[in-house]
């Protein structure tokens, strides 16, 4: 992890630690990612339940990246906003993209992306959730869990 320094000024979330990009190219990679995320969450003193939420969300999103994005990569970042500490997960792929994001987020959507609970479930487990996706332009999912 490369430490990044910024002056502590306004209450804007600032990444203080960033992982090297984690490849998501196989189901084994998904397991490795879970372990890395778990380690980072423990290190940032998240409660056991919060750790589980974050790791589970990571697993869902990683699987999506692999199965529907054709593989991609993940980024694990520790954020600081004033006294608050957060963990930000970013998943990127250059796959086919999501044509209808709202539909993909609804549970039970099983054709194409979404696979039932994947995206919607991950969103419920995290505090902030963003998707950028366009058909043919790949997908980026960002999820943050705050202390």
């Amino acid at each position, binding site marked *: 992890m490369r430490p990044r320094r910024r002056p502590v000024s306004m209450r804007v979330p600032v990444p203080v630690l960033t992982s090297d990009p984690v490849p998501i190219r196989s189901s084994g990679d998904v397991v490795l990612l879970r372990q890395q995320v778990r380690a980072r969450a423990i290190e940032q003193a998240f409660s*056991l339940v919060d*750790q589980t939420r974050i790791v*589970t969300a990571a*697993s*869902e999103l990683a699987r999506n990246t692999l199965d529907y994005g054709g593989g991609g990569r993940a980024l694990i970042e520790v954020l600081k906003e004033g006294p608050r500490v957060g963990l930000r997960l970013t998943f990127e792929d250059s796959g086919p993209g999501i044509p209808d994001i709202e539909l993909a987020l609804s549970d039970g959507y099983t054709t194409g992306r979404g696979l039932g609970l994947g995206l919607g*479930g991950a969103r419920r487990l995290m505090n902030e959730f963003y998707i950028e996706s366009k058909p043919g332009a790949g997908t980026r999912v960002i999820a943050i869990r705050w202390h």
Partner: protein
Amino acid sequence: MDRIPILKMGPFLLVTIQVDMHDRLALMLQDDLTSRIADTGAKGVLIDISALEMVDSFIGRMIANIAGMARVLDAQTVVTGMQPAVAITLVELGLSLPGVRTALDVERGMALLRSFQDQPDEAAPPPRVDEGAGAGPDE
């Protein structure tokens, strides 16, 4: 690649999941269990997940699938030892495990499976039905 071992205990099959499974391993377990139930005519399957620190929708679906296939083969499924953090996360994920009975530990899970044996005519197990908001002292 390692497979998750399946133990036979009388008329029941016991599986203890102790590794962080990748998706292929989970699918293999699903297939292996189904075959073993068919081969042995087992009446019950006990899946102990006390060592699992995470159950996501894929593993949840695997468990539900196992229970469904077991049911078709006339076997009950009991899941034991779910950790509190995992249980809370599963509920928030929105995952229910239809057709899956649960118990706190392997011992109680086995007792539950045996109790099903004593009532062979009991209908298919839905999620447990609780008494409603009755105010009376007698049930």
